[in-house]
């Protein structure tokens, strides 16, 4: 299955030639989780704090489905 990943707020340093927010298409076997995804694209898990899948908060164990939009963030805040 194919998903679309976006990383922000400094996580882009782990993805050569990608800037923040730039969609990265990733192929992942059926049943793959966010954990598997991070391993595949080379982002250390302890740098990721918020995982949004189609705008909903999910955990590292979430099983990804085809076509989903996955956004990854380190700890951020403001107001």
């Amino acid at each position, binding site marked *: 299955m194919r998903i679309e990943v976006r990383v*922000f*707020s400094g996580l882009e340093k782990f993805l050569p030639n990608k800037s923040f927010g730039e969609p990265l298409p990733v192929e992942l076997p059926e049943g793959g989780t966010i954990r598997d995804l991070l391993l595949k694209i080379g982002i250390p898990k302890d740098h990721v704090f918020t995982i949004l899948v189609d*705008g*909903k908060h999910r955990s590292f164990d979430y099983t990804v489905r085809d076509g989903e939009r996955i956004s990854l963030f380190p700890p951020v*805040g*403001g107001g």
Partner: protein
Amino acid sequence: MAKFLRVDMSAKQAKFEEVSDKYLTLGGRALTSQLVADEVPAVCDPLGPFNKLVIAPGLLSGTNAPSSGRLSVGGKSPLTGGIKEANAGGITSQKLANLDIKAVIIEGKPADKGFFLLKITPDGVEMLSADDLAGKGTYEVTAICRERYGDKVAVITIGPAGEMLMPSAGVSNNDSDGNSSRYAGRGGLGAVMGSKGLKAIVVDCPKTFDAPVKDPERFKAAAKKFAKILLDHPVCGQGLPSYGTNVLMNIINEAGTLPTRNFKFGRFDKAGEVSGEKLAEVATARGGKATHACHPGCVMRCSNVYPMPDGKVCAPIEYETAWCFGPNLEISDLDVVAKLNYICNDVGLDTIEAGCTLGVLMEAGVIPFGDGQAAIAALEEVAKGTPLGRIIGSGATNAGKVYGVTRVPAVKGQGIPAYDPRSCKGNGVTYATTPMGADHTAGYAVTANILKVGGFVDPTNKDGQVELSRNLQVATAAIDATGLCLFVAFAVLDNPEGLPTIVEMLNAQYGTELTVDDVAALGQNILKVERRFNLDAGFTKADDRLPEFFSTEELPPHNTKFDISDNDLDEVFNF
């Protein structure tokens, strides 16, 4: 000896007075709201002689407690008709606290026209004519005052919007570099200051961290511990200093609750173009700064310095401002956002209200969505005082009435900020119920709803939101009394040592024996005082509601409506 400075603008006299016991342990919002409740008739005309403008440093301001230099400005709001506390960074709070001034109370109203400047120094107080400053923007006024009175002075001032008594005029003060961009922005207190004939207050004090402390050793230890608590927290210690508050743009957008095109959509496909990441890139490339402190002693340094193409700088561009002039108007050019921000700072207008109002004008078809140059031209009308300029300065609700717009994002007459209440429902509860009118800072449920700070409460579900908002409103009122920047809350919510350490600082400074429970009681009491004022001013339950369209129109991408019942909203203040 702690003192009040009471300034009678009818007689043009100022005098110091002793602080009675009742007010000795109050500061910041606790003090401004209590003084307004005690001294201002709730039914008075906000721009008349009976309203007062109260300016108070927080309880910990002027000490070496980290990030404690926040200033509270209070009064009856010409925008909402209720009580108002607007909170600002900048360098004034520390100076007032080091002069041992607990509050400046400005009252009365001059019979004649003309503007004045109040000068406060360690040697005393002087009232000077400011007719030569009248009509000038805040940047110029601040520059002139720093030239006349020394480049270390703090300058509180209003722009032409405040002089023209516009209901969304703010009160500015400056950062250490002299930028008049640190605003007590919301609720039109700039118009209250203007109605008193006061153009500026200059505060000169050579000290920054020497406000009286009863037990300095104990205080020092607690302050050091608190700084460590802040720096150890990933948001306060790393997130805020890296990208500033505008780091929120992308996460709020991805979460689908970024109000776009006057609250029509929850995502803006060009949000990244006006985000904190982009801002840091451009600011650094142009020789600006991605991090900056709004006052000495802030360890979180969320501010930034954005050089504009015309050679001026806008410092800072905050998330709410980037949102209200960006996605809210479907504008994706950071230079346009910076320009709109700068115009507001200079003319003396609250940015959030100005952005919401431009959104309403775009909804009405007066100017097209996405047209940055048209937005700039419209905002430039404010300084000229033309009819369009005055409509913009009168806020979103008034503009909606003038143009027959029903989709007006506002509560109690004040514009709703940068998180759509349908997919960030905790903030929806806060907007509806805070005594301040729609205000994100009053109970920032974005923490648990989106940022996963202080737990997690699903933002699109109504469960748990009332309790979340209630707890945050109580905690926020207390923090606003301390003079600590509200952003300490990220660490305090996650670290059980946080609140006890704040209490320890307060006790060491004032020789009190407060407990953590007393702090919660203080927060509750502030809210009760404010609610009572609003009740006496004529507010009812009907004022604690969101505009109708939030419960009838679905917000994509989650297709949510605001569905928290009236009964549940009425439970927020059940203490």
